[in-house]
């Protein structure tokens, strides 16, 4: 990460970024809930050019039995990128990056999911990145929350994801792929909008204490915007009266 020499103009003199956005604008986000036939809950999310499909199974039986917990359900998450999702074809086997992101997303969802309601079971969240363009972990987390709600898994709150960052010396919202490659910092955030708690936070890059504060503030703002889209996805599926789904 960080500051590779590039021909791309990350921020021009009018404050416009390489994809036409202003510094505090997120990319276009659309979410559809309930897109798969077999999964208990599912969601398809497009976050800019990211395309991610999430499926949830559970609560369900745990195999092998010794992995289950008598007091509580367990949450299992898998973030996986399809071989055709990135510029250079990716080997289908899970990479260390995917293993780490799976764990980070699991820990971002755990504060929200009420696992104690289902002892001895597991809730499985599978996030498949079909096309990647920077910020996939935030988009995957966002889709996962909607899929969990679609499956009827009780949650204290949804979790919305959005990254803040720094490019061309400016604090920006929702870092895309070019900005991630050539920019100065990338700060993915996962946020519970009603409980007002941050459950995912990572940093790649260098920020002054002031920039760090600004990133968190602008990032939370981005998460709140993403939350509105999550709400709409669930409303469209469950509350549209008289319309065939």
């Amino acid at each position, binding site marked *: 990460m960080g500051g590779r020499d590039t021909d791309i103009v990350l921020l021009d003199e009018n404050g416009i970024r390489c994809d036409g956005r202003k510094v505090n604008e997120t990319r276009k986000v659309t979410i559809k809930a309930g897109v798969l036939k077999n999964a208990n809950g599912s969601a398809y999310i497009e976050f800019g050019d990211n395309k991610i499909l999430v499926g949830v199974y559970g609560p369900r039986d745990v195999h092998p039995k010794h992995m289950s917990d008598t007091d509580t359900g367990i949450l299992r998450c898998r973030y996986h990128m399809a071989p055709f999702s990135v510029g250079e*074809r990716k080997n289908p086997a899970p990479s260390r990056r995917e293993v780490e992101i799976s764990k980070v997303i699991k820990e971002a969802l755990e504060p929200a999911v009420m696992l104690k309601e289902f002892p001895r079971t597991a809730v499985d969240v599978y996030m498949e990145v079909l*096309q990647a363009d920077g910020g996939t972990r935030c988009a995957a987390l966002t889709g996962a929350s909607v899929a969990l709600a679609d499956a009827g898994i009780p949650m204290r709150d949804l979790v919305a994801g959005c990254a803040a960052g720094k490019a061309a010396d400016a604090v920006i919202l929702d870092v895309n792929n070019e900005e991630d490659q050539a920019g100065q910092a990338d700060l993915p955030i996962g946020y519970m909008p009603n409980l007002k708690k941050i459950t995912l936070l990572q940093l790649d890059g260098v920020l002054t204490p002031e920039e760090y504060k600004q990133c968190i503030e602008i990032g939370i703002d981005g998460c709140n915007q993403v939350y509105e889209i999550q709400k709409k996805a669930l409303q469209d599926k469950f509350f549209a009266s008289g319309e065939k789904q």
Partner: protein
Amino acid sequence: MSDGLIIDQLKKNQILDLLQEGKRVDGRQFDEPRKLTIDIGVIPKAEGSARARLGDTEVVAGVKVQPERPFPDTGDKGMLICTAEILPIAHPSAETGPPQPPVVELARVTDRGIRESGMLDMKQLVLEKDKSVIGIFCDNAVTDHDGNLFDACSYASTAAINSCKIPKYEMQDEKPVKIEGEFTEPPLTTLPVSVTMAKIGGFILVDPTIEEWGIMDARITITSNSDGNVVALQKGGSDGFTQEELIKCAELSIKVGSKIREIIKQSK
């Protein structure tokens, strides 16, 4: 894969009773495949892509093209490799981890069906003989499993490769360099299409659903090309086929295959 599925006795009896009357559970004829829709370009950043929906089964195929070192014994040919994966979102019994035998079989049958048909003229995919060739990877991801993944992967792969764009490369200092913004059409020679048939209680059924798959005695997947020739075969399941049945299956697959081929052609 459905080897983990328990089809309840009631459903099993119902399927068999209906077959005796010449009917299938979903009202199809014995030689009728489910509705097939193909959308290409669903992954715009890949060099080619297609989503195939065969009934409720759904597969996304993505094509990636990149320069590769050729195989030692075929320095005058490009590379074409197909894979298939059943994503854990596709079915409650789908597992993560190293692929189990049914998934390995699915991947290899899909690969053979495309490669053995000679779908692409690999001799036209050479940048520098014995040094650098074009490698084409077609990866299939099953996103929803309602039976007959062999055919769904075949159609998604054929549609994706049929509609892909090969980037232009130039050899500079012994290394292949991509010329941005320039593409060529793939060197297509034929469109392979597979048709899978299940044998249940002596009846041959085209395009089994997951329930029919769960109670079948045997199955056969036959791939044909645009000339109506048979290019790949795979028999599975624990029962056998008679000679007559095999000939009937080949005829069926060529007949049904040609209709499917039209759908794939239309998708481009």
